[in-house]
């Protein structure tokens, strides 16, 4: 997973051993194997059923991985900040819904396995149409045009009945009876494996795209578009092609959405979906190809898990976002990459102690923060919904002083402890990386 596609903190080593073929891709193959196995870990052998929650979550992870990666084709690889990426996702989803319905009604026998291509084409065509305008500009003007397009299409989706179905959306039935392998797709597990297959194909294609001249030129136009122009390339054309191809993959993700939920509403084109793409991609890390994959997995896990437990998901997402932006602009993948030179020098073990000493106060502060947020939340929203705060069968009364005092203790002294720990960790980190530098990266 060390495909460095952007200039990150560590320059690629010139002396990296060339490894060819599939062996080099072992992390991807491991992830694929894990994705295939996980549903069976939660299989209920007594009733012979898969866990619906797990399969639904994994399916969502699959489509969101494609969506986030397609977003990173713009943000990470071409330096184009888009606020309307959900439009491409949603239009792909709507197209698929219509194609599936048409196919079911006997229009033409399109196998369900290939319907994501229809979504991809829908995304591609809308990206060509919208990208023609949007990619005339770059930087902030591009971001603003995409914001406008996003709001425009959302409003259209609510307004027009024939294509978008208005507020009710478009529903369809994936059991068309046409399949390459004779599958019925009645259960969600079959759809899940279809999603895994398409996710693998899309990831492979997008990874290959980063190595084409177009992918390289996208990087060049991101870093210095004037120089790219001098070399003789048309930055606008590069932006346009990158936008269109990104639309293709976003459309595939949208198609998988349709196949999973069998209903497409205006939520798929709305701003919150675009914000999701931004969130996943940035938290995962824009500078590394695999970054958005990490981000998508993390965000979907948090979203489905935290939103089950708490209705303050937005606060945690916002805080996580702010912390990442402030302290780790390279995202999670960037954080991992920072360790690469130390790992190569074989000094990673020396950081274990400092990390442990950092972990304890961080955990305390996180606990205190969660407790404080939940107490506030249950004081107002929870009370209105008639819920009570229960942890392991222990009911916590937000009107009582004790939990508030505990939260204050965790946050106050815990915060001071964390500050000291962070300083010490910074010193330890600096010492280790100095050693690595003077040793010249040799173990």
């Amino acid at each position, binding site marked *: 997973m060390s495909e460095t596609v952007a200039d990150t903190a560590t320059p690629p080593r010139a002396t990296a051993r060339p490894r060819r073929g599939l062996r080099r891709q072992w992390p991807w193959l491991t992830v694929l194997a894990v994705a295939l196995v996980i549903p069976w870990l939660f299989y209920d052998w007594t009733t012979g059923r898969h866990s619906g929650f797990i399969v639904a979550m994994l399916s969502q992870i699959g489509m969101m991985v494609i969506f986030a990666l397609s977003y990173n084709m713009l943000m990470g690889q071409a330096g184009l*900040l888009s606020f309307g990426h959900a439009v491409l996702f949603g239009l792909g989803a709507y197209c698929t819904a219509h194609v599936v319905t048409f196919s079911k009604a006997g229009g033409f026998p399109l196998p369900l396995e290939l319907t994501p291509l229809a979504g991809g084409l829908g995304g591609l065509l809308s990206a060509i149409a919208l990208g023609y*305008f949007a990619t*005339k500009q770059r930087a902030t*003007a591009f971001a603003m045009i995409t914001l406008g397009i996003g709001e425009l299409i959302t409003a259209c989706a609510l307004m*027009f009945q024939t294509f978008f179905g208005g507020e009710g959306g478009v529903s369809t039935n994936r059991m068309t009876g046409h399949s390459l392998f004779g599958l019925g797709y009645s259960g969600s597990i079959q759809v899940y494996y279809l999603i895994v297959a398409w996710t693998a194909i899309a990831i492979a294609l997008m990874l290959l795209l980063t190595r084409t001249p177009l992918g390289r030129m996208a990087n060049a136009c991101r870093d210095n578009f004037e120089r790219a122009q001098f070399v003789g390339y048309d930055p606008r054309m590069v932006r346009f092609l990158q936008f269109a191809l990104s639309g293709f993959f976003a459309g595939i993700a949208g198609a998988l959405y349709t196949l999973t939920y069998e209903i497409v509403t205006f939520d798929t084109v709305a701003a919150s979906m675009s*914000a999701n793409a931004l969130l996943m991609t940035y938290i995962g890390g824009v500078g590394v190809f695999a970054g958005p994959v990490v981000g998508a997995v993390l965000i979907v896990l948090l979203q489905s898990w935290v939103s089950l437990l708490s209705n303050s998901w937005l606060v945690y997402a*916002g805080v996580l976002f702010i912390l990442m932006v*402030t302290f780790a602009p390279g995202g999670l993948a960037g954080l991992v990459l920072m360790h690469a030179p130390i790992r190569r020098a074989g000094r990673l073990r020396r950081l274990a102690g400092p990390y442990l000493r950092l972990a304890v106060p961080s955990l305390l502060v996180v606990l205190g923060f969660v407790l404080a947020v939940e107490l506030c939340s249950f004081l*107002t929203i929870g009370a209105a919904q008639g819920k009570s705060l229960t942890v392991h069968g222990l009911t916590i009364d937000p009107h009582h002083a004790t939990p508030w005092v505990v939260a204050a203790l965790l946050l106050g002294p815990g915060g001071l402890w964390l500050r000291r720990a962070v300083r010490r960790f910074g010193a330890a980190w600096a010492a280790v990386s100095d050693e690595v530098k003077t040793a010249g990266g040799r173990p």
Partner: protein
Amino acid sequence: MEVVLVSLLNGLVYGMLLFMLASGLTLIFSMMGVLNFAHASMYMLGAYFAYSVSRLIGFWPALVIAPLLCGALGAVIEMYALRRVHKNGHIAELLFTVGLAFIIEKAVQMAWGLLPVPYRVPPVLDRALFHIYGSNFHAYRAFMLLVSVAMFVAIWLLLTRTRIGLVIQAALTHPEMVSALGHNVPRVFTIVFAGGSLLAGLAGVIGGNYLVTEPSMAATMGPIVFVVVVFGGLGSLAGCFIASLIMGLVQTFAVVVDVSFADLLARLGITVTSSTPLAEVLTIPLPRVGALLPYLMLILVLLVKPRGLMGTRDT
């Protein structure tokens, strides 16, 4: 005729409200390069602060206290958070404000609940000021107009007649040069960010009871304000003013002019029936398209003039 006049006045009120929000955003955006997504959140906070304060000690103190609270909050955000993020680049700053907007929205829901709060117009102003063509012009609208004009004059005086105003003006177009001349640009940034937040808070105080005070008010107002800023152009308060008025008028008039493309075609002798291609697009009445118009205008302007209406710098 009366429709035109009444809509003109209403559009003016709405446009001035937009300007109050957009002027702060323009200053922040032009000087610091930060697309502040939390700006509309400050507007929302202004309304909620005003609601709470006015329940305790009345509307008039709230008119002063709530914007000051927003301004102080803005200063704290700039000094302790945004400055730290600044070194990570513009996109990081922008994303920081997105995260901030999330948190503020949820915090407002936690503090004041999910439903709209009953933040009302003060009784003194809750009456008709005068009648034109049989319809009332509400006294509160006149008050809003008065406040926003007063604010406009105050900003104008501040920017053109004071030293700090001149520095801000210079920093709008040549931020590097200003810092090279030895001015404390970070302090100017803090002042501008706090001032912008204060203006947004003031807009919230007088707009919250005119419209609705609810947790989604930031999300509904935010995109429109962005449109105004980009439409008007970076680094130009005059462009921002014109854009605000245009947006206010366009949105108000779109609601009252009940025509569709089908009506226009009917004048040309073409009748649109349900079997005509694109019949749905052609028959949709203008009032329903009203919400779309700002975004259409934004896209059109950016295609023709990437710098916006009166922008002095590239976005």
